[in-house]
């Protein structure tokens, strides 16, 4: 099975406090730690496991700046066979539709049976898989937490729905699935693994290589644009307990007792 996994380099929210810069045009990017989008690690792990079971190859692809190459390398260290870097300044400022347009062009250059994305990335859209599938006219399922390969024409996929219930469907290949966390336990990549792929060539493709009209993507093609970041007017917010730890604990215990929080 030929599997393509879409990955994105994002600021790591468990390593950083994300803050807005002075003029609200962007988040504060100094000293940000980046990593691969959490959901994408599960997608890669799933792809590697499927390949190891039924054969084939896993390709990782990203649309992103020079820096993004490091996430392709990381996923190759996990066990992906090939990387593909879609890199062009014409891609800057793309909205979700733009990124999907670029990825679609890359998909059409290959011969993939299964395309995986993460269910969600840093801007909380969860749109890429569904858009890509619709553009390709492939079947799609989101929030997938189980994949069973039936044969080279069909799979069984489970979607995680409300309450942790699972909706099972049979789907024709090729198809696109967005992967939910928890579907597997992504393997750990050590320094040695990263070193092994440090010098592997990763091909880059530009808008020209992909046959994409520059004005259909990037800022020019975007219908949806972020205007600014701002601090919302908050409601009351929490009553913050302050003082020494002992004082805080004393106050907290008083409150918990009053509210029935200590039996």
């Amino acid at each position, binding site marked *: 099975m030929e599997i393509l996994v879409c990955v994105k380099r994002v600021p790591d929210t468990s390593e950083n406090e994300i803050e807005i810069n002075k003029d609200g045009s962007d988040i504060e990017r100094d000293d940000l730690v980046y990593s691969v989008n959490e959901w994408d690690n599960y997608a890669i792990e799933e792809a590697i496991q499927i390949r190891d079971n039924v054969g084939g190859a896993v390709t990782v692809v990203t649309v992103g700046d020079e820096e993004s190459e490091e996430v392709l390398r990381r996923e190759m260290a996990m066990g992906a066979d090939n990387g593909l870097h879609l890199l062009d300044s014409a891609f800057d400022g793309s909205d979700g*539709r733009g990124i999907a347009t670029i990825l679609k062009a890359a998909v059409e250059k290959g011969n993939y049976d299964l395309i995986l994305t993460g269910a969600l990335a840093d801007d909380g859209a969860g749109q890429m898989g569904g858009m890509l599938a619709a553009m390709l006219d492939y*079947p799609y399922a989101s929030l997938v937490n189980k994949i069973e390969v039936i044969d080279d024409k069909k799979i069984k996929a489970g979607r995680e729905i*409300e309450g942790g219930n699972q909706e099972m469907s049979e*789907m024709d290949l090729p198809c696109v699935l967005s992967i939910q966390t928890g579907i597997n336990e992504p393997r750990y990549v050590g320094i040695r693994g990263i070193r092994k792929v440090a010098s592997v060539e990763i091909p880059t493709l530009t808008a020209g290589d992909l046959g994409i009209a520059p004005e259909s993507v990037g800022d020019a093609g975007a219908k*949806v644009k972020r205007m600014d970041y701002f601090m919302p007017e908050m409601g009351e917010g929490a009553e913050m307990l302050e003082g020494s730890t002992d004082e805080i604990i004393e106050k907290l215990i008083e409150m918990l007792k009053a509210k029935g929080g*200590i039996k």
Partner: protein
Amino acid sequence: MAQIFAYVAHKAGKADDSALELTVAAKKIDPNASVTAIVVGSDAVCNEVAASYNEVWKIGTDAYPNAEVIRKALVNILPKESIVLISHDTFGMDLSPGLSVKLDSAFVADAMDFEGIEDGKLKVIRQEYAGMVTTHVSCDIANGAVVNVRPGAFQPDESTGAGGSVVDKTGDAGDLSETTRRFLEVVEAEVGDVDITKSDILISVGRGIEDQDNLEIINDLAKAVGGDVSCSRPIVDAKWLEKARQVGTSGQTVKPKVYMALGISGSFQHMGGIKGNPFLVAVNKNAKAPIFQVADVGVVADILEFVPELTEKVSEMK
């Protein structure tokens, strides 16, 4: 005047809570909008929904809601340039991005609020980085838009006695049979050894606990106060606790008297599982964590240090 549609989901013959929220969202986009609900389902649901919408378009079927099939039907019946509101839940996430592509309209996910339409652009408020920052987004609606609305972001307006009519659009919807994605069954979530939906006191732990071994301090606190341990999703993903202890939209809906969120950031998917307005205490080392916006009481502290001290004091007191 924008023509706005709201896709109304339903379960077990009852319209989803989002039905009443989406009308309010539509009025926030355009106070003069005529809002039409679309219901793929039975007459009973259509009649229920008609109470709060000017008009209901019915696509009659009692098949399982397969997003692929419903997308085709919507593309067949929706006028060009319409604004379509859909709840940002697991069905909306499945349906909407592809629908926008097929309608060739813009897509905005997880909208929390609207600031009206100006020069053909809809101004939307949404969040990024798991709720840590808020943004204004401009959405070009010249060719219409599909907008997913965050569940619970708009207060439902129960007073609207719109009393609309039901229009049967089934004939225009096209072939409703499943093709490339075929529904098989729904597998119910496993039940665990503790039913956290019945607990009065929940000591809930999130990714801030850092390591499985550290869960001991959470268990100790729960024991000291006489509560049960629940958690956020990453703890279940890591297999540190069983799925039945997960609070949130893809986990359990709980109604405790007291909820302590320890090292939990406060994502809407997590908060969506907490009902009944409990006394909410948040302990987080980041003073800007979104959970402090919704908690009753907050403590900025490292849970690895704070929780054992709290446990000790609670035990001493007893």
